[in-house]
């Protein structure tokens, strides 16, 4: 079913270089003395949520920030390893805002919105300055200037980093700025609190229902605007590089309250993760993409070659990325690297016990640069690899395999980062806007901080000044209804008293989605997956076993609510993937490929954002299309040869 509402992103007219300046000038402002009269809710405390809360607090708004962890510092942004891009051109190697913009639009396979991406590239330079000023200990040259490294999808060196812990250091910077505002009384923190519903009054987002995970108590929080910064939905796949707690519940419940969900099938498979070792496995561990700077990826030329890597002579190795893509070599974008790894494994040339792995070999780099240099660049990653696999990557090549890592899709937002529900803003990975069908490495941190530090502080003010939301209280009938519905939802999960654990359902869902809506997809497979997911959902509501009660810390209950949402979202991902009859970026439909096996886009028919609207649990979702226009970067078949 196709909806008729017209999606207007509200992109300012005129040259793209001036769009953000123009938009900011056109925005209405809130008088400094009036800011404290406005309460804003921020859900999530990762890079986007913490930076937004801190900045809005600094401006004088009354901010309430919610996170499900015990401390905002634990949000999953903390686990980002490799770095953050910025168009500083400190290396004098030809970088510019325009080039970062160009690389990001191309890397996203022409499925992102040009104006948003341009603004992101503009903000990138301010992010680095802000983080340095906060005391983020970025890597430095001996002379004291900031150091850069290269990352996939780019031919310039523009990635700033703090060892292999860039996300940690950036998040701690934002977290410290947030705690400073908590101390100043501008932000109230609600840790161990999970948003379970969005309250919409007269068409505007006016509050949330949250559950205190320690006491089980539900509470209603009212506000003038709600900001979701709750991250991505990679955990639909069960096994992913996301944290175990990462979930889609906040954005999914907002979807059910009327926000459109854009491009759900655009998911990213990261090429360099530690392969799966057994069926008890709870998550996958990423090895930073930065390793591809110095590591060479290869498999044996022969099928089923069981020799140890050191016994395979040079001329019997296939450095397949260097062979197929001489210009970018091991630094091709993530989707290309992942698909090629799958292809060589499908040919039977994969390595390791399961045959699902390829080598990432540092011996050349160690010979060239010395072990000490490699240790300085990647020491903590090598240690982590050794801890998990018991193998020493200084001596034997790492084994890696692709895994779900990031989701480009998310709630639809306009240029102001506002969803289709006025007053509901969505930041960071939770929205869909900047990465198209494939995100380039070191761009997620950039986007989260751009949204939180430099965009939402302007756009939320514009909303408050123009919409002038009326006073409402928690006793409004809509708030009471949302509260009651949440209470019933929890009671329903506990009342099933079936036989199967939440994890067993989650694993089954993950396998269906990985097999049929993962690295490659077919119409037949997707149709089958939709049927299987529906059956799984049916069984979930009849045969789930959640022990314990709702009035204390009950981790099974938390998981159950999240998995219920993942099941529904998994179905929407498959519906979206089935509707998009083309291949682009991370969405690879086997029916649509070039003779060389690359993704074959169909710009004539699919150059749009697919935004889905909820129409009730028994009805199919409605599709709305936002056409994409490319006035600056002309869509072409991506070539990394």
């Amino acid at each position, binding site marked *: 079913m196709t909806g008729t509402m017209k999606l207007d992103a509200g992109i300012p007219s005129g040259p793209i270089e001036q769009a953000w300046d123009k938009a900011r000038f056109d925005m209405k402002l809130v008088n400094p003395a009036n800011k404290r009269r406005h309460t804003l809710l921020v859900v999530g405390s990762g890079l986007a949520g913490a930076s937004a809360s801190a900045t809005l607090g600094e401006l004088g708004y009354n901010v309430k920030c919610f996170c499900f962890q015990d*401390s905002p*510092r634990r949000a999953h942004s903390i686990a980002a390893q490799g770095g953050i891009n910025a168009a500083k051109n400190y290396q004098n190697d030809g970088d510019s805002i325009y080039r970062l913009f160009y690389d990001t639009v191309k890397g996203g396979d022409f499925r992102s919105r040009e104006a948003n991406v341009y603004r992101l590239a503009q903000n990138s330079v301010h992010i680095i300055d802000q983080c340095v000023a906060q005391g983020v200990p970025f*890597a430095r040259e001996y002379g004291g200037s900031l150091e850069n490294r290269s990352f996939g999808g780019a031919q310039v060196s523009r990635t700033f980093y703090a060892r292999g812990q860039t996300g*940690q250091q950036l998040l701690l910077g934002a977290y410290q700025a947030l705690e400073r505002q908590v101390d100043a009384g501008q932000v109230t923190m609600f840790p161990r609190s999970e948003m379970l519903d969005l309250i919409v009054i007269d068409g505007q987002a006016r509050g949330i229902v949250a559950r205190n995970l320690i*006491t089980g108590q539900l509470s209603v929080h009212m506000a003038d605007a709600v900001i979701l910064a709750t991250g991505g939905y990679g955990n639909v796949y069960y096994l992913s590089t996301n*944290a175990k707690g990462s979930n889609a519940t906040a954005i999914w419940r907002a979807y059910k309250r009327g926000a459109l969900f854009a491009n759900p099938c655009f998911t990213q498979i990261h090429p360099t993760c530690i392969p799966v070792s057994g069926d008890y496995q709870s998550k996958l561990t990423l090895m930073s993409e930065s390793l591809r700077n110095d590591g060479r990826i290869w498999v044996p030329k022969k099928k089923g070659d069981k020799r140890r890597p050191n016994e395979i002579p040079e001329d019997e190795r296939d450095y397949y990325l260097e062979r197929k893509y001489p210009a970018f070599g091991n630094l091709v974008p993530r989707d290309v690297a992942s698909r090629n790894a799958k292809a060589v494994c499908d040919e039977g040339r994969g390595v390791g016990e399961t045959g699902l792995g390829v080598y990432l070999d540092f011996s050349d780099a160690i010979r060239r640069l010395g072990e000490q240099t490699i240790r300085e660049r990647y020491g903590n990653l090598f240690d982590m690899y050794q801890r998990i696999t018991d193998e020493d990557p200084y001596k034997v090549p790492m084994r890696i395999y692709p895994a779900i890592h990031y989701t480009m899709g998310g709630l639809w937002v306009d240029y102001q980062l506002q969803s289709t529900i006025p007053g509901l803003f969505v930041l960071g990975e939770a929205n869909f806007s900047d990465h198209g069908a494939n995100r380039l490495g070191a761009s997620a941190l950039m986007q989260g901080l751009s949204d939180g530090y430099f965009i939402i502080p302007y756009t939320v003010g514009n909303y408050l000044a123009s919409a002038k939301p009326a006073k409402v209280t928690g006793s409004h009938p809509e708030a009471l209804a949302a509260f009651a519905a949440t209470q019933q939802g929890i009671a329903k999960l506990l009342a099933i008293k079936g036989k199967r654990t939440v994890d067993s359902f989650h694993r089954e869902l993950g396998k269906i989605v990985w097999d049929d809506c993962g690295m490659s997809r077919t119409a037949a497979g997707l149709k089958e997956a939709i049927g299987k997911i529906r059956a799984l959902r049916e069984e979930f509501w009849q045969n789930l076993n959640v022990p314990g009660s709702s009035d204390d810390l009950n981790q099974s209950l938390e998981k159950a609510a999240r998995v219920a949402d993942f099941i529904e979202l998994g179905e929407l991902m498959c519906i979206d993937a089935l509707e998009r009859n083309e291949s682009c970026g991370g969405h690879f439909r086997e029916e649509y490929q070039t003779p060389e096996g690359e993704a074959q886009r169909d710009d004539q028919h699919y150059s749009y954002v697919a935004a889905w609207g909820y129409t009730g649990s028994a009805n199919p979702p409605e599709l709305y299309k936002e056409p994409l226009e490319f006035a600056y970067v002309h869509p072409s078949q991506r070539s990394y040869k």
Partner: protein
Amino acid sequence: MKLKLTIWRQKNPGTKGKFVTYPVNDVNPEMSMLECLDVLNESLIERGEEPVAFEHDCREGICGSCGFMISGVAHGPQPATTVCQLTMRHFKDGDELVLEPWRSASFPFVKDLVVDRRAFDRIIQSGGYVSVSTGNAPDGNDIPVGKEIADRAMDAAACIGCGACVAACPNGSAALFTGAKIAHLGILPQGKPEQDRRAVRMVAQMHTEGFGSCTNIGECTGVCPKEIPLEVIARMNRDYLFGAWTERSEVINTIAPATDWNFREK
């Protein structure tokens, strides 16, 4: 392999806790300690019992959520390793492991292996930041920071706030955690203007929370999954001393520790 896990079970702070021993068969040496608990929990749920509550999130040793004592050692026997990355190959078939939560009066008990570490957030609130609002920053390269300085700051900044240092310390001191932040920011030129004030306020908050004093035993750094060096405590003491001298006339406000999970709004 087969293991026996003796685990502290306690429903909430108001009820009495006890150790319960669970045999776990089919332990794969490649599993992490937390995956071993996952397997146990699945079997407990299937038997109609309540699973063991434990903290975890990223499971790659960086978020700092997880952590408990394994046979008396915070995060278990492997150096520089959180329990989420501790693989079972470090144990032998037939081993009995005793799992209990961090024990510290400043980390109030929550459930089973879960404690309340919000005291750490309040220590950061008391000055663990550079007061620079968004938009105020000069160009990132305006102030040169030598590589050695940046590296030393990074060594201290690597702290994940897991609380193992407190749990391991016979005095229950949070000096390694507090010192790590004071050192990270104090070493960098960006943190210099607030160096004195920061040390005084953070140390005062640390005492308000009831953490013990440091007597240079070094258990903290021994169990620290990020190997935060003991020298950060010396740095804290030095900055505190200087700060106490220059800021001695100022009234030092501390934050009242929260005693429950009912949030009060300002």
